[in-house]
């Protein structure tokens, strides 16, 4: 019979290979799903994974969609490595958009190149402070950061909805719950003419590099990893658990906040109740799909964005229901967790043993 046997060490090639296996397994299972729906599975998979790469505009949209995912996932990965579980990036994303967006609206219609940097700082600060709530509650009272950060997402959604129907509402907008559109100085510059690729994409890339340096070359990265892998050893080595909690939640909150601001002042161009499109939650998948490694996250974010853009195309061309596309994306996480078993355990065939 087949048994699972714990591995003493995990070969490096396996760590790299398992996400690829998960993607392939998703393609196969997804293909079966599409076939059951009466669609051509090969065509569906081709449209989802290949077509967006061949179309220049779709390529730019992959960057637009991937940027916030990568930016948030980078922050989350630091915490996940240290065993600090920030599940509320979506809330920090919203608070960042609110704090930064409100700053931009406050200076309407003042022009000046100082405004966007100011908004970015305000956005990062908004996300940072929102993440400090679960951090302080955990440090001070031992409250579970998973629950607190998650619950704060719903508070943030309602706060956004309240502010855009109240103080931040567009005065010329017939009372519809949305802010006015950001003026020129408060809007992110576009990097590629005719597309929506904005300066936030560069910041996301910068975050990848910074995280790589921190994790590989910096003492902080070592402490984060140590806290996650051997908390007791970390304590003996003089690493303060509380400082790590505050730093991890703080960094991930600030990055999520910046992502929120970039989304508001970039592709959306105003504050609307529908701004949170689930990036904060999808980024959790991206972080794990990327093995919590900065370069892995960069690739995972691009793949995830690809499935979104391709999923829309598949809906359009093949009339695949949007729910089936969501199932398809869910499969990706499912298979990732499933193949993860292979990195920790080895499959071994043993002879029948007597019961």
């Amino acid at each position, binding site marked *: 019979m087949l048994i699972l046997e714990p591995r003493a060490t995990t070969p490096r090639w396996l760590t790299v290979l398992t996400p690829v296996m998960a993607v392939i397994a998703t393609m*196969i299972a997804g*293909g*079966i799903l599409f*076939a059951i729906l009466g669609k*051509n*599975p*090969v*065509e569906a998979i081709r449209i989802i994974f290949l077509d967006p790469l061949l179309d220049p*505009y779709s390529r730019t*949209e992959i960057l*637009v*969609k991937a940027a916030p995912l990568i930016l948030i996932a980078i922050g989350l990965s630091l915490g996940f490595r240290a065993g600090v579980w920030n599940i509320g990036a979506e809330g920090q994303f919203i608070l960042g958009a609110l704090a930064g967006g409100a700053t931009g609206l406050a200076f309407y219609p003042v022009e000046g190149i100082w405004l966007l940097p100011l908004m970015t700082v305000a956005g990062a600060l908004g996300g940072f402070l929102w993440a400090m709530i679960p951090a302080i509650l955990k440090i001070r009272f031992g409250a579970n950061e998973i629950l607190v950060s998650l619950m704060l997402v719903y508070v943030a959604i*309602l706060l956004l*909805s*309240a502010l855009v*129907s*109240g103080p931040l509402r567009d005065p010329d907008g*017939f*009372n*519809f*719950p949305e802010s006015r*559109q950001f003026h020129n100085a408060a809007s992110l510059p576009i990097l590629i003419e*005719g597309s*929506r690729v904005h300066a936030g994409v560069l910041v996301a890339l910068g975050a990848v590099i910074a995280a790589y340096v921190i994790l590989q070359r910096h003492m902080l990265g070592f402490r984060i990893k140590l806290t996650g892998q051997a908390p007791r050893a970390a304590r003996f080595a003089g690493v303060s658990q509380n400082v790590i909690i505050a730093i991890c939640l703080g960094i991930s909150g600030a990055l999520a906040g910046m992502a929120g601001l970039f*989304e508001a002042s970039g*592709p*959306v*161009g*105003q504050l*609307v*109740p*529908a*701004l*949170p*499109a689930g990036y904060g939650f999808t980024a959790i998948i991206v972080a794990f799909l990327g093995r919590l490694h900065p370069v892995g996250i960069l690739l995972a974010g691009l793949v995830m964005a690809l499935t*979104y*853009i391709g999923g*829309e*195309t598949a*809906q*359009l061309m093949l*009339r695949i*229901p*949007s*729910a089936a596309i969501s199932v398809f994306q869910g499969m990706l996480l499912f298979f990732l967790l499933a193949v993860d078993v292979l990195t920790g355990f080895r499959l071994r065939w043993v002879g029948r043993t007597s019961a």
Partner: protein
Amino acid sequence: MRFLTTLLGAAALALGTTAFADGHEPTKVGFIYVGPVGDFGWSYEHDQGRLAIEEAFGDKVETTYLESVPEGPDAERAIRQLAASGHDLIFTTSFGYMNPTLKVAEQFPDVKFEHATGFKRADNVSTYSGRFYEGRTVLGHIAGHMTETNTIGYIASFPIPEVVRGINSAYLAAKEVNPDVEFKIVWVSTWFDPAKEADAANALIEQGADVIMQHTDSPAAMTIAEEKGIYAFGQASDMKQFGPNARLSSIIDNWGPYYIARTQAVMDGTWESMDTWDGIAPGMTEIGEFSDKIPAEVRASAQAIADAIAAGEMHSFTGPVNKQDGSVWLAEGETADDGTLLGMNFYVEGIEGELPN
């Protein structure tokens, strides 16, 4: 291995795609829906409109849609994708698509856009909506008669003018026939969330409501009403199959005729940017069949109201009407102008509770 052969077989099939042989390019019409086509409410009725186009024009048109497109950052790409893939006419069917529609329209001046329920237009962007508040006057009239607890529950989505207008017109009509009537309003902050809508319905019933009205898109409240043996109204679509006993009547959004007319205009080259706000008279707002549960004389008076509104002899908002704070809004005999209705952000006198702001 067998799986592989199945895949290869499917690939072979894909090569034999269909093509139009007569050399006549069909007009391509695209739709963006905020909910799934199977919501049996708002998006479902827009999709019925799409099917009406297909029925009317046969193979002279080709229609496509994207469903469950969130009103956030993804909307612009979805709309652009329709425009870039050769569509001649694109209907974006939710308020939140307004600015994305305008942005895409600017980049595709040759494509015609139609945005539902918005207020911004451009040379190639029209707006259209239904005067659903007219229908709510009829439903409010029925509700006022049918409630025994004098409590009508109202499931509301977002405090935008369209929804506030509906609450006010329903309340005025109910109050007219039942001075003791009280409205309990629950804001669910969503257009489509069957679980939330069901929770709201249950909460309203616990507060004594025996008739439920809704301005959300799923039939969840209708099924709860059927279970609890109280009354409800279909919203956006008839919803009769979800509450054969509970359903008293309904407001049906009938987009078909408008969609057919606009498609025809694109084919003829006569399409122009305009604003359409049609009510009961042209049939964009349709009142569903009255249930037998409604006494005959109420059915007759409700029909009379619908006919009077259609004939232009009656307006849903006719003075004297005060605002909630007691200040005068409409003097005796005065009717509301469209400008105020389009920006309505206040309750009329008698409705309790505060408008979320």
